[in-house]
């Protein structure tokens, strides 16, 4: 009997050891798998057909046709993937957050429009799960609100500047990219402590005002102002991109010089490395195209203002002249940056590799070229991400890696009335 138990124990130990070895080797296999994939010239995003099968898409996306700023904004959904695989989706236009289980099926919704604690007075964004348990939200007025994974309101923090992006780090810290308005406008990156609310600024950059990157017309007497941003010139192209490393540190990607800077959650610089990317230049032909575009805009503006009874003929003439007098700067190379940014998006995969997406020129808008680096900055490969069935958009807030898969809300091609889908992609 005693020998039998000894034998059982040995068998158990062997099984336990084997299980441990297999478990430990799984992430390694996945990591090697992702690394190997990135060495391929083309990566196909293949939809998991057993994911999100019980959803009624028509009911899930009632705002899909909602148009704001002349665009269908209801088509863009920010998501956060929890460690257990459940997905939180920001239904911005409904002022709600919707939760899906690990199989992609809708479970519940929470949040509403209003000014009480836990309510959203303005459109908001979701940006991460702090310490794996608090869902983080913010609006452009600087309100940060936190909910637990069941949708219970936990806490509110306030910023005195306009937040543009945020990322949740380890140790209850949040990195914030913000913009301080005023004559001396500047971008900042700061780190805020969730528990104390204390904030430390770790990076700043002064920005020239809109007159450098836009055509601006002041409407006489009426006193209003109109602005047309010049393509390639807006400073949002070069604002730092925030991401969390696999170890919970902050990665600050600099699109204007191709540097990646790593900070601890406490704001101490760990290292900097430069991506080996050759940024694209802005050609004379593109500048001429821009000029032709703005000549057209100038004519459209003239037609619009000439129809407006609020202005006298001389006021109309003055406004039109203001626009035309700025056309020269569209043709001036000095208006433009020396080159396009080194990358358009920065995404960290579930193995901690860094993916940066390049600016593309040409006809293919649904083929995205990514440069991939490991977390030490060593180049892994360059490959294109493609999908046969979905229109892709590599915006970090709407796109998440988890356990080697990609989660996003995308538009399914030729899907009829309701094209939006919460989808899980396998990389092949």
């Amino acid at each position, binding site marked *: 009997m005693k020998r039998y138990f000894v034998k059982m124990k040995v068998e158990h130990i062997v099984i336990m050891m084997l299980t441990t070895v297999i478990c430990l080797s799984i992430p390694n296999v996945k990591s090697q798998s992702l690394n190997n994939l990135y060495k391929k010239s083309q990566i196909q995003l293949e939809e998991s057909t057993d994911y999100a099968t019980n959803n009624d898409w028509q009911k899930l996306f009632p705002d899909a046709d909602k148009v704001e*700023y*002349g*665009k269908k*904004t209801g088509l863009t959904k*920010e998501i956060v993937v929890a460690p257990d695989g459940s997905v939180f989706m920001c239904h911005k236009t409904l002022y709600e957050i919707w939760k899906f289980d690990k199989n992609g099926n809708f479970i519940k919704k929470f949040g509403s429009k209003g000014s009480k604690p836990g309510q959203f007075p303005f459109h908001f*964004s979701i940006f991460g799960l702090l310490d794996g348990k608090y869902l983080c939200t913010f609006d*452009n007025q600087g309100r940060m609100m936190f909910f637990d994974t069941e949708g219970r309101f936990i806490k509110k923090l306030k910023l005195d500047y*306009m937040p*543009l*992006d945020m990322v949740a780090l380890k140790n209850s810290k949040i990195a914030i990219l913000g*913009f301080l*308005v*005023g*004559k001396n*406008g500047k971008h900042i990156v700061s780190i805020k402590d969730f528990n104390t609310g204390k904030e430390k600024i770790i990076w700043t950059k002064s920005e020239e*005002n*809109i*007159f450098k990157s*836009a055509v*601006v*017309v*002041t409407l006489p007497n*009426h*006193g*209003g*102002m*109109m*602005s*047309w*941003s*010049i*393509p*390639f010139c*807006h400073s*949002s*192209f070069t604002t730092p991109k925030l991401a969390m490393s696999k170890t919970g540190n902050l990665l600050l990607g600099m*699109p204007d010089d191709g540097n990646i800077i790593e900070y601890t959650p406490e704001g101490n610089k760990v290292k900097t490395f430069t991506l080996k990317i050759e940024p694209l230049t802005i050609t004379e032909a593109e500048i001429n*195209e*821009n000029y032709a*575009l703005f000549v057209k*805009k100038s004519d459209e503006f003239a037609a619009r203002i000439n129809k407006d009874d609020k202005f006298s003929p001389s006021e109309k003439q003055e406004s039109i002249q*203001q626009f035309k*007098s*700025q056309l*020269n700067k569209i043709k001036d190379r000095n208006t433009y940056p020396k080159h396009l*940014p080194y990358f*358009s*998006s920065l995404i960290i995969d579930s193995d901690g590799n860094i993916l940066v*997406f*390049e*600016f*593309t*020129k040409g006809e293919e*808008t649904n083929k*995205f070229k990514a440069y991939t680096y490991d977390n030490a900055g060593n180049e892994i490969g360059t490959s294109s991400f493609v999908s046969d069935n979905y229109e892709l*958009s*590599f*915006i970090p*807030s*709407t796109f998440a890696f988890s356990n080697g898969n990609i989660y996003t809300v995308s538009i399914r091609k030729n899907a009829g009335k309701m094209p939006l889908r919460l989808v899980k992609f396998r990389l092949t």
Partner: protein
Amino acid sequence: MNCLNEIEIQKYLDRELPEEMLNGVEQHLKLCSACKDTYSQALESKSQVFAFLDQFAAFDTPREIPVFKPGLKKRSLKKIVAITSIAASILLFIGFGIKINNQKTTQKQIDNITKATYEVTRNIDPNKMAHDKQIIVVTTNSSGEVIETTITE
């Protein structure tokens, strides 16, 4: 030519700029709406100051000298000085108030246009923006509030 600062614009208004700079400044004001705006505001303030000073010009015109009455002249002078001081203070306050308010409105318009542009770009792929040469058009009203934002293709 670079944009003008407020001191240069004030000097231009007061005809205190060196002659060799005048031509360049005039050309720049024709082309640059920002400087033209600042210039218009400065010009407006200057007009208000002159309007204010014009009221006192009447004191320079010859007036009949009143009959001397002991004690009365002193009191009148005091009264005039007091009234003048109060009037000057009020007018200066109004003048500065208008200037500051104009500056605030313009800065508020610029700030709100900047904020609206960032808000719109948050969930747009910069690559798509560049690829499609998208233009963000923002319109504010006279209070600086954004009344329309559109993205053109």
